[in-house]
């Protein structure tokens, strides 16, 4: 049992910290610190900064142009990035589609698409969910029917995050109605500029715009855009989801948020009565303890995955813990900001103490819904780990 990082790991941490300090534009850090999102141009600029350092595809193996880091280095990198309020790289490119292509895609697909993810040519979005298929993802109804060298796609996707910036979408489509619903699903790459595609914005509860619905009417997609084998898409889709979930553990981001919470508490709690202060302090202490415990749980899971890759059902555990802790932090920040949290940040003149705390809190209710809801994660744990 040794819970310390090696001197080599610590050197690496210093290297990353130094890099971020010198290269992260303060404007981007400010946006992230306030719970906002970079626009497309800004994120691509940040991608370019990381690319020049060779750290953009930091979770990829060397042979595909990545860093080849193991889980510990990757973790340190994530933590340092979060600590500095650095924007996260586009997960759809680097953490979702790329691993699927590397494992199941053709050589041509890897050669063509992976470099385009790195050089900023392609911005991918995720076309899994449909109005009638959320938790029950296997019930998707968007169809792809083979017609010569093409598929013809019809149907609707929804909740498509950052679709407004994307030029490409990876979709789960139905190619067969035979057998179990899972058996007729394929994984298809679609260029959003193809005729017959319409993207419409969905406004979120906090008034923001980050999700969309996408309509497909007789959209012609070259059959060469199929990943792996026809009707095998479900396997690839699940593989991708375990990657998506690990990212959702958000240990680094939660640590950063905890720091912010404690700073805010130090600043704002002076006006509170001694007992109210103690009650709030107890809440903060509880979440700090939960987070410290979870940090180790996360490291244990990562350590058990020999040679990188993604954990299996354990990722469900991390997703539940990670999202709940993060949501509790948002809830506490909102509390600490107190009365001023009522004011809209985007309002004409927000009060000095306003931090969009309410907006971030509501927006992050999504954490326990997407990537497979926490209820679904518990179903997975019940079945896969508990054997119930």
């Amino acid at each position: 049992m040794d819970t310390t990082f090696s001197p080599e790991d610590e050197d690496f941490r210093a290297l990353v910290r130094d890099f971020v300090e010198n290269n992260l534009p303060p404007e981007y850090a400010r946006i992230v610190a306030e719970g906002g999102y970079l626009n497309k141009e800004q994120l691509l600029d940040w991608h370019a900064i990381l690319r020049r350092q060779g750290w953009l595809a930091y979770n990829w193996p060397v042979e595909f142009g990545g860093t080849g880091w193991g889980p510990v280095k990757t973790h340190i990198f994530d933590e340092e990035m979060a600590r500095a309020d650095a924007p996260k790289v586009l997960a759809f490119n680097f953490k979702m589609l790329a691993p699927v292509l590397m494992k199941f895609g053709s050589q041509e697909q890897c050669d063509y698409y992976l470099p385009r993810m790195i050089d900023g040519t392609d911005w991918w979005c995720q076309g899994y969910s449909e109005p009638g298929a959320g938790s029950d993802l296997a019930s998707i109804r968007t169809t792809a029917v083979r017609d010569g060298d093409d598929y013809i796609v019809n149907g609707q996707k929804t909740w498509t995050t950052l679709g407004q910036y994307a030029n490409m979408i990876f979709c789960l489509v139905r190619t067969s109605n035979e057998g179990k619903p899972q058996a007729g699903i394929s994984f298809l790459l679609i260029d959003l500029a193809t005729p017959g595609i319409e993207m419409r914005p969905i406004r979120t509860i906090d008034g923001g715009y980050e999700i969309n619905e996408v309509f497909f009417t007789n959209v012609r997609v070259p059959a060469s855009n199929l990943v792996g084998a026809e009707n095998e898409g479900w396997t690839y889709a699940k593989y991708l989801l375990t990657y998506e979930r690990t990212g959702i553990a958000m240990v680094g981001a939660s640590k950063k948020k905890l720091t912010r919470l404690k700073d805010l508490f130090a600043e704002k709690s002076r006006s509170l009565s001694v007992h109210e202060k103690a009650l709030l302090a107890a809440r903060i202490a509880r979440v700090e303890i939960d987070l410290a415990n979870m940090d180790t749980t996360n490291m244990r899971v990562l350590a058990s995955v020999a040679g990188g890759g993604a954990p299996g059902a354990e990722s469900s555990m991390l997703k539940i813990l990670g999202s709940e802790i993060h949501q509790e932090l948002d809830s506490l920040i909102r509390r600490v900001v107190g009365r001023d949290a009522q004011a809209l940040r985007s309002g004409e003149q927000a009060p000095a103490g306003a931090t969009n705390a309410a907006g971030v809190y509501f927006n992050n209710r999504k954490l326990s819904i997407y990537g497979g809801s926490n209820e679904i994660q518990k179903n997975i744990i019940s079945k896969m780990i508990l054997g119930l």
Partner: protein
Amino acid sequence: MDFTHTEERQMVVDTLARYIQNEYNLSDRNDAAASPQGFSDVHWNNLAELGMFGVFFTEEQGGFGGSAFDVAAVFQELGRGLVVEPLLDCVLRSGHVLAAAGDFERLAKVITGASRYVVAQAHTTGDRVTAKQSEAGWILNGTAPMVKFAAGADTIVLSAQSGADAAQASFFLIDPTANGVAITHHDTFDGGSASDIHFADLAISSDALLGSAHHADTIVRTAENWACLAICAEALGIMEAIKETTLDYLRTRTQFGTVIGRFQALQHRMAQVLLEIEQARSAVINAAAAVNKSETDCDKALSAAKYSIGRIGTLVAEEAIQLHGGIGMTWEYEMGHFAKRLVMIDHEMGNADHHLARYMQFDLV
């Protein structure tokens, strides 16, 4: 023991419910809530005409109700309809200040909806307004922060520190457009508005004093108790509305070939929501029953209620969004707006921790 409403009170509630059902739709509500004033004059006038403002006051005060259960019943219904019009800030709270100060002439105009007064309580908070006596009257300095719906009021009823300490406070009637008053309006997250009101050497005449000098503190506290009861009742109404919507959703949303309400995991979550809302309902009843009791009993019951609805309200909002899945995260879906107001209620008049701490101080610590 009787937990039913009187016939008159039930009629008022039914009238209000019908009005909301027929005339009050959420998308118009949201538009009005996002406007600079933060609510609709049309609905304001209609609600006044329906007699809703008189319900908060006794016959002696010029109204036709005035019991705590009247107040709670109306606000519960307003909550169910997510009514944004500031009956709490511009009628109930300010009306009770005017009544306690003996100004029934002004109160009468409040009850008809002709005048809108808003109370800016600034004699105890960290950001204080001080009133210094001058030859001609008073000079005011300081800031009253985050005064809800000041943007819609024609007169500010300011409680300022007029003597040596916070206990020495007086009410002043202030014209918001006067020189020396600077107001920053903020849109609020749940719709509506709140304002920081700054006073810089504002000179006012002695006429501006409401009631007698140095008597504001107890009056503010009484008015605050009414407001606290009202906001708790409003929260209860919102919870009921959210519960119904969520239940409907559980009964109709299909996943895995069955309605999601068939999943026991979700049934238990919803059962818990129901239990908690019933506890919140009882807390509001306890608070209403205590309003006219001794100061300690009243304060305790109100803190118990505000703590309960703060804790339970957040739970109900979070559970409702979660049980809806993605649709619960959208602006388009009405429930979310109820959830936002419900959570924001915990940011007004002291949150759950604040009231739990106050409760503890009565005889525990």
